[in-house]
């Protein structure tokens, strides 16, 4: 009898410790999924009592999960929309809490054979609105500009539209491709193409230096320029929670915002907050 009781007690204790394992679920942006996984790995290796489950699916999917209560933390490469905040308020009587977790620099790429080296934000806007249609108008060759964009489900698309196009619609002949890799590939094969997206080091393309306006200097999207804010096309990557974080979630988020968490950001190719 004794050994059985011992065994039972032991297993109850074991079960209790397993239950005590705190699980934090993180879901959302595909742009951030690598970064979130690395954060989780590093954090879990130091805090054995916490399990962090990271899944992607896209910013919208993550926010839906936050609204439906199926995730604790949501990653998003764009700010929450009003309609989403409204839905969250209906369910949880909270507008959500926004955490800026990292910075990302977006690049404008052209084919490497293209003589254009720099553009102003104004020119990029006019190109994507279809007001500038020939490379000659911005100092290039006599050729039609072929526009490449991300699909409208992407946070990058929304950022570009809100911040560069001032909320106006892309020109109708803008071709949208699934993923930054597809845009880079298309531009590398199309000598009159232009595309935008996250930092990319593909062959056959060149990242343009950008000027905030006509009179300012042109800055290439280097780590230094993105961090200092001199490069005019940077955005934040966000994390959202339903209510002000407490307990293990707070500890995790505080760690992400700490110097240690921010040093992980750089190893993935994004930029720390400071």
């Amino acid at each position, binding site marked *: 009898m004794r050994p059985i009781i011992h065994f039972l007690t032991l297993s109850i204790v074991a079960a209790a410790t397993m239950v005590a394992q705190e699980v934090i679920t993180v879901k959302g942006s595909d742009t951030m999924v690598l970064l979130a996984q690395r954060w989780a790995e590093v954090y879990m290796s130091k805090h054995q009592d916490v399990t962090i489950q990271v899944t992607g699916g896209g910013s919208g999917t993550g926010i839906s999960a936050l609204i439906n209560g199926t995730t604790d933390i949501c990653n998003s490469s764009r700010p929450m929309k009003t309609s989403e905040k409204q839905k969250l308020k209906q369910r949880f009587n909270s507008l959500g809490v926004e955490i800026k977790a990292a910075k990302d620099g977006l690049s404008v790429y052209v084919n490497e054979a293209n003589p254009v080296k720099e553009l102003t934000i104004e020119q990029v806007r006019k190109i994507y609105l279809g007001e500038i249609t020939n490379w000659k108008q911005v100092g290039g060759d006599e050729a039609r500009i072929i526009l490449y964009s991300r699909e*409208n489900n992407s946070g990058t698309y929304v950022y570009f539209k*809100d911040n560069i196009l001032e909320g106006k619609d892309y020109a109708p*002949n803008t071709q949208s491709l699934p993923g930054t890799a597809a845009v880079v590939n298309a531009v590398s094969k199309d000598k009159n193409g232009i595309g935008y997206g996250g930092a990319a080091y593909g062959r056959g393309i060149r990242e343009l230096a950008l000027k905030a306006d006509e009179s300012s200097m042109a800055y290439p999207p280097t780590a230094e320029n993105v961090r200092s804010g001199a490069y005019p096309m*940077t955005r934040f990557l966000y994390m959202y929670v339903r209510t002000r974080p407490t307990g293990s979630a707070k500890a995790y988020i505080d760690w992400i915002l700490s110097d240690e968490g921010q040093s992980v950001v750089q190893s993935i190719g994004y930029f720390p907050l400071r």
Partner: protein
Amino acid sequence: MRSSDLYTRKFHVSEFLAEKLIAATAFLSFAVIILIFVFVFREALPIFSSSEPATHDEAVQEEVETYGEEALGEASQLRAAEEKERRAGSIEHVEGNASLRNLLSTDWQPVSGEPKFGLLPLIVGSLKVSLIAILLAAPLAILAALYTSTFAPKRVKEILKPAIEILAGFPSVVIGFFALIVLATFVQDLFGTMYRLNAFVGGVALSLAVIPIVYTIAEDAIAAVPKSMTEASLALGATSWQTALFVTLPAATPGIFAAVLLGVGRAFGETMIVLMATGNAALMTFNVTDPVRTMSATIGAEMAEVVFGDTHYNVLFLIGSILFIFTFTLNAVAEFYIRRRLLRKFRGG
């Protein structure tokens, strides 16, 4: 009539059960299709019931709580302030109204200050790409079917037939990727088109997916032509080409029509290939070298990130319903009209 009462009853019970089980399975798959149908339509329905744009709660306009802002560096704080200002000034995302006028416009800009859900360019896009695909695929597939079932030596047929049918199991992502990387460049070099990705490239890639379907069904139809007909033709002195073109092919016409219609259905519903190869610009043109955006690619690209329950979400389901109705009608026509009417005609009924 019955030798053993017990034996027969037992036999009847098991047979009864087996029969009902099979019938239940058949009805289950039927019910699943109906349920999918109902689900897709139900999600599209809100478009027609509420036409007034949603108004937002005043409370929502209040500041969103932030956390950890103090951890931001100086440069980041500056950017955050700038972004906040820009966000306040920018047009907020509104739930568009999907009035009939909006749905019949020629602009597809669903993520916008004023969302435009014009379905016409998407419908034109789908039709354009499907037409190119079927115009390329049908003659090739039908002639291939005719060759393998009437002319090809047995050994050639044994290699050729499975080889074409294997194409049907080819993942469409692979075909799409091939089109995106290789075919698009090839077509642009050949014709000097302005756009690298366009309706033509998409149609050619799509025809690779359509050929095996048309081929398989057309081959079955040709093989089903009674031997007596072809033998009679040959006995009357017709050459084998004359027999194939003027006897076998006409006799198999109903089946071939069905094959082509099913091919169109496949082309219409195919998503991955067109998503990768057509450029996805919602242009309302009939030029085959312009990029196009098809209905299926639109759903494939946008569904993952749409705000659930939003008008945009409902419109995507409306597109799904249109696709569903279209392919359903095609299949029904292929099944009922052509098989019955034309079969009767050719059998001399």
